[in-house]
């Protein structure tokens, strides 16, 4: 095996993975910070502002604290499952980032293309869905292995919630796939050169946003960990590093959902209403940098929307939540899918 092929198959992906992991972990930590600050502003208070300038070092301090805390395993717990459950939660959340293209590919001198994605898989979005569907195991196993009733309740709720909302979520994504005609995320982004899908697929976008909030267990759908009912839900018994895993996994999922929504509905790294070809005339590095910035801005705006929801709404009840999933979102998603299929078949021939 030559050095070059080694680099192509092992080296570059590894470097990309390491960079991505670092960046994602950083983003996730600061998502927590942004959320706390924004909630502070929403609620007419300050939020974390003591550690470092504007409290910017707060996430690091929190992380250190959690690492140094005692790792408690309850007497009733099943130790093996209890230990591995957080891994089930955090791995899918991070693996999902592998297929997201954050910026237009960087084209250097001799036509060598460096895509800003770990692996632009052929079935990208399907891969993403199947990987994130494994995240529920982290929650279910945590609830089961804790040997306590509140986590059990939390994980039961979580399992049914995630299963219920995965279906409308998948259906709304399907309509995007129908429009783009490909499972590949970069193809989907390219298909939105002229118009972000959020506008023609407004129904699907709505369904996606609501289901995504439910999939990531956030208010108003945060029943699995609804603190006023189930204390901490599935992670009630966790402490220290293992709790931090769940915490990180939740926020990694939030960031992932923001990135996916940006790619699927908001046009990814494309600047809306600006033809992409005009940009290509500029310097390639500039194009990539601009694309990255655009992607970031869109994702952060979506994140802002997320936090805004959290500051505003009360929590749904378990049965109401399931009813919304099955009776409202699912029919809307199906209707939308039929509409899109019909349009695609007869109008856009």
């Amino acid at each position, binding site marked *: 095996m030559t050095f070059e092929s080694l680099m192509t198959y092992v080296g570059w992906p590894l470097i990309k993975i390491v960079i991505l992991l670092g960046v994602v972990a950083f983003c996730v930590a600061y998502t927590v910070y942004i959320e706390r600050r924004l909630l502070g502003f929403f609620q007419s208070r300050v939020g974390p502002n003591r550690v470092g300038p504007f409290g910017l070092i707060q996430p690091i301090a929190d992380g250190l604290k959690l690492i140094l805390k005692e790792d408690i395993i309850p007497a009733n717990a099943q130790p093996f499952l209890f230990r591995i459950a957080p891994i089930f939660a955090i791995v899918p959340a991070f693996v999902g980032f592998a297929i997201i293209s954050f910026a237009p590919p960087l084209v250097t001198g001799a036509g060598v293309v460096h895509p800003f994605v770990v692996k632009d898989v052929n079935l990208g979005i399907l891969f993403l869905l199947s990987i994130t569907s494994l995240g529920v195991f982290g929650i279910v196993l945590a609830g089961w292995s804790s040997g306590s009733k509140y986590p059990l309740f939390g994980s039961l709720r979580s399992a049914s919630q995630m299963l219920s909302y995965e279906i409308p979520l998948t259906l709304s994504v399907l309509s995007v796939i129908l429009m783009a005609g490909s499972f590949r995320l970069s193809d989907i982004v390219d298909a939105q050169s002229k118009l972000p899908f959020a506008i023609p697929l407004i129904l699907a976008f709505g369904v996606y946003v609501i289901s995504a909030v439910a999939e990531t267990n956030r208010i108003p759908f945060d029943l699995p960990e609804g603190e006023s009912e189930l204390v901490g839900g599935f992670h009630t018994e966790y402490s220290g590093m293992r709790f931090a895993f769940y915490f990180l996994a939740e926020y990694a999922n939030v960031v992932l959902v923001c990135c996916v929504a940006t790619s699927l509905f908001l046009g990814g790294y494309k600047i809306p209403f600006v033809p992409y070809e005009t940009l290509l005339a500029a310097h390639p590095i500039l194009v990539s940098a601009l694309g990255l910035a655009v992607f970031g801005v869109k994702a952060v705006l979506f994140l802002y929307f997320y936090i805004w929801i959290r500051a505003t709404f*009360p929590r749904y*009840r378990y049965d109401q939540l399931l009813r919304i999933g099955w009776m409202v979102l699912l029919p809307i998603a199906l209707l939308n899918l039929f509409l899109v299929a019909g349009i695609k078949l007869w109008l856009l021939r």
Partner: protein
Amino acid sequence: MTTELREAAGTSPLRKALETTTMELNFGPQHPATHGVYRAVLQLDGERVVGIESIIGYLHRGIEKWVEYRTYTKATPIFDRLDYVGAILNCHGYVGTVEKLMKIEVPKRAQYIRVVLDELQRIANHLLWLGTHALDLGAMTVLFYGLREREVIMDLFEAMVGQRLLQNAYPIGGVRLDFPRGWERACRNFMAELPHRLDEYETLLSSNRMWLQRTKGIGVISGAEAVALGLSGPTLRGSGVYFDVRKCIPYGSYEDFDFEVPLGENGDVYDRYIVRVREMRQSLRILQQALDGMPEGPLMPEKLSKIIRPPAGEVYFSVEGAKGQLGYYLVSDGTDKPWKCHVRSPSFINLQGLEKMVVGGLVADVVANIGSLDIVLGEVDR
């Protein structure tokens, strides 16, 4: 068909595995939604509540015993510790009881000052309740907004009587000090501001579909049931029963003021919520009238012995506390210490209504119902 299957399974372990049983869930005493150290043992069939047993007493401090060893004057601050978010009302109840027993005529100006402080305390209590109730149902922002407004009231208390939470506001016979300079203006500023803030909360909650879904038709208790269970205050009025001590058994000049008693219709969580929100607006009306019509005069009755020694006998006196009818049953033996003092604490008795409200509902509704009762465990356990 199913029963046949079950019978076919016989007495094997498999059959045992197929049987469904209820699950016992220990709700509290350390739980974010119990507002203190209240414990409920829930019997659950899935997420549905089939039984509830309330276990209280974790905060029992033996106040009723303690009072028997204190002089009447020294006992006053102890009652602030009952309902520590509505302390002034407790204080008013106690001094009112002694005044009734001794037939002390409280000067008019003192009565009006008491009305002002009482209603401010009621608003402060309802604001805190609103915030915690909303937080129980997941709307966290309202809590901080409510605390922000409550803070202003606390500052007013501090300026008036020197304390924020447990004020020991009234001596037996009247009030200690008049309003400090500028206090009235500050109070009026707050009164002008609050209606807009209340509108804001109602935009966040009353007009929110999710809030309505979580509260409408939940924990329904009919008026007759509520009266039989002895519920009082907004909890009772939410079921449409007209009973407000300020109107029905007037005390402390409340008959001078023109205000309405908001009533609910269905007796659900939403009605109890909306009654309290409207009550805050009515409290503002009373405040306005009391400040406008503040009479001049002394703050304490002229002839009042320094040692309080009521005649032997018994008395029952109640005020409209923030949570409901707050009654004091006091027995005097003619000495300077009470022979017995029993507090009819509204939280304690309202909590009895919880079983009626939650059985048949879901776990999440238990939280909504506990919130809608507005209990303070200091008052439940005494």
